[in-house]
C-alpha cells in the first residue's frame, strides 16, 4: 500500500545536523511527492475500474439474442398488382405497402419517418397521411407535407425462383442516400 509512506512525517533525528539536515528534508519531499503520485494512480485506477464496470452494466441493456418476428415474406405474383394502385393487403401483417407503377413494383415501409406512426393511404387524395403529426407522402414515398424529414423507406424486393415476390424487410433503401437506384429496391417487370 502506498499509504505506508505517509507515516514518514516525523523527521528522523539527524546524526550530524549540518550534513544531514538538508538531505532529510529533500527525501521527505520526495516521499511526499511520490506518495501523492501513487495516490493519484490509485484514484485514476479506481475511477477507471468503476467507470468500466458501469459501462459494462450499460451493455446489460443490449441482449445478444433478439426474439423478433420473421422479416421476410412471400407477397404473391407480380400480376396480382395493378399498375398505379397502392396495395394495402400486407399492411396489417407485415407493415408493407406494395405499389406498382409503370417502372415496376416496390415495397414501401409503413413506418412514418417522423416518429414511427402508421400513415393511412387516402385513395381519394392520392397520398399517405400520417395521423400523428400530419406528415403526407406521395405514392412513391416522397414526403411533401408535414414534419416528416425524409421519404418513406423502401424494402428489398426480388423475385423467387418460382416467380413469387420476396419482400425482405431487413434491408432498407433510403431515397435521400440515393439508394432507391439500387436494383433490389425496385422490381422491374
Amino acid at each position, binding site marked *: 500500500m502506498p499509504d505506508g509512506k505517509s507515516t514518514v512525517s516525523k523527521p528522523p533525528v539527524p546524526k550530524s545536523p549540518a550534513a544531514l539536515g538538508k538531505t532529510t528534508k529533500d527525501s521527505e519531499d520526495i516521499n511526499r511527492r511520490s506518495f501523492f503520485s501513487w495516490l493519484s494512480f490509485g484514484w485514476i485506477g479506481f475511477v477507471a475500474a468503476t467507470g468500466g464496470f458501469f459501462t459494462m452494466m450499460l451493455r446489460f441493456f443490449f441482449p445478444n439474442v433478439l426474439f423478433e418476428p420473421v422479416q421476410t415474406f412471400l407477397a404473391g405474383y407480380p400480376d396480382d398488382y395493378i399498375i398505379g394502385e397502392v396495395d394495402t393487403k400486407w399492411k396489417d401483417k407485415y407493415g408493407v405497402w406494395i405499389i406498382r407503377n409503370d417502372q415496376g413494383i416496390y415495397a414501401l415501409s409503413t413506418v412514418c419517418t*417522423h416518429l414511427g406512426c402508421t400513415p393511412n393511404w387516402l385513395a381519394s387524395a392520392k397520398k399517405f397521411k400520417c395521423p*400523428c403529426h400530419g406528415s403526407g407522402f406521395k405514392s412513391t414515398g416522397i414526403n411533401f407535407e408535414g414534419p416528416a*424529414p425524409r421519404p418513406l423507406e423502401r424494402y428489398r424486393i426480388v423475385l423467387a425462383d418460382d416467380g413469387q415476390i420476396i419482400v425482405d424487410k431487413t434491408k432498407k433503401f433510403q431515397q435521400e442516400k440515393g439508394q432507391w437506384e439500387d436494383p433490389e429496391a425496385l422490381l422491374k417487370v
Partner: protein
Amino acid sequence: MGSFKEIVNTISNPTILFTSVVIIFPFVFPPSDWFEKWHRKLGLHHLWSKKAIIIAMIGMIAFFIYGLGDYNFQKIVLKPDNVPISGLIFLVVFFTWLSMYQAYKNDERLEAGQKPDEFYEAPNDKVLVWPDLVYVELISLIIMSAFLLVWSIGLPAPIEEPANPTESPNPAKAPWYFLGLQEMLVYFDPWMAGVVLPSLIIVGLMAMPFIDRNPENSGFYSFKRRRLAISLFMFGWLVLWVMLIIVGTVLRGPNWNFFGPFEYWDIHKLEALTNINLSEIVYIKWLNTGLPESILIREIWGILIIMGYFLILPPLLAKTALKDMYGRLGVVRYSVFIVLIITALTLPIKMYLRWIINLKYIISIPEYFFNF
C-alpha cells in the same frame, strides 16, 4: 347562436389565437415600465381583483355548459383522458389569479411602507405544528381522497382497442401533459422537439435561481419588484406549455389538422400544406437554378442564419437592448440566460415561418438526420 360558434371557431385558428395571446400577454403581465403604464391605463390590473375571478369562473362555467350542448365540443371534453385538462384550465386560472391577487395586495402594502402580508415577528408569531398544521394537512388529505374516490367511481378509466402495431389511431395523441411537446414536433425535427428542447426546459428551470439574482421578495407573493422574471416564467408556463396543451387537446383533430372547438372532425378535411425548405426557396424560387449537389453549398444560407441567430444576436443584444441586464448578470450568467431565451423563442419564430411562408426547415440535411 350559430354565429357565436363560428366566431369561436375562427378565433381558435392558431394564427389568430397565438398572435392575439402574444400581443395581449405583456399587457397582462407587464415586464417593463411602459407596459406597466398601459396595464394600468387599460384597467387590466382589475383582473386580479375578487370580482374578476368570480366573473371569470362564471364565464368559463357558462362556456362549458353552453359548449356541452354542442356534439363536437362534448365529444372532446367528455373523453375520459381529457377530463383532467378541463380541470386544469379552471385550476390554472384560479391559482394564477390567487397568486397575482396576493402579489398585488403585497405590492400595495410595500408601496405604503408596510410589511408584506406574510411577515411575522420571529419568534413570537409562530404557531405549533401540532395541532395547527397537522389539522390543515389532515383536512386536505381527506378532501383529496374524497375527491379522487368520487372521480374514480364516477368515471371509468379509459381502455381502447387492443394494441395493433399496424394501425395508428387517428389522431394519435400523447398523454395530455406531453401534448405541448407533440405540438412542438409539428414545427421541429424530433431531435430538437423531443430531446434538445425538453432537456433545455429542465436545465433552464434548474438554472433559474442562478440567473434570477434579484435577492428581493423571497417568501411572499409579489409582482412589481420581480416583474421581468414573473412575466417570462408566465409566458413559458401559460403560453408555451398550458396553452399548447389545450391546443393539442381541443384543436387538433384527425390527420393532426386544426379544428375549431365546435367544428366537426372531418377526416377528409383537406389542408394542402406543401412545406418547403429554405434551400428550396433560395435556389429554386429565387435563383431558379435547382438545388446544388454539395450539401454545404445547398445549406449555407440556413447555416449562416442559424449561426447569426445564436452567435451574433446575443452579443449584439448585450451591447444594445439588454445592456443593463448584461451588466447585472456578467458574462456567464448572461450567456446561459440569453441562449435559453433565444432557443425558447425559436418555437414561436418557427411557428410563424410555417404559417406565413410554409417553411419547413431552415437547415435541412436529411442525409445526416440534421434538420433545424
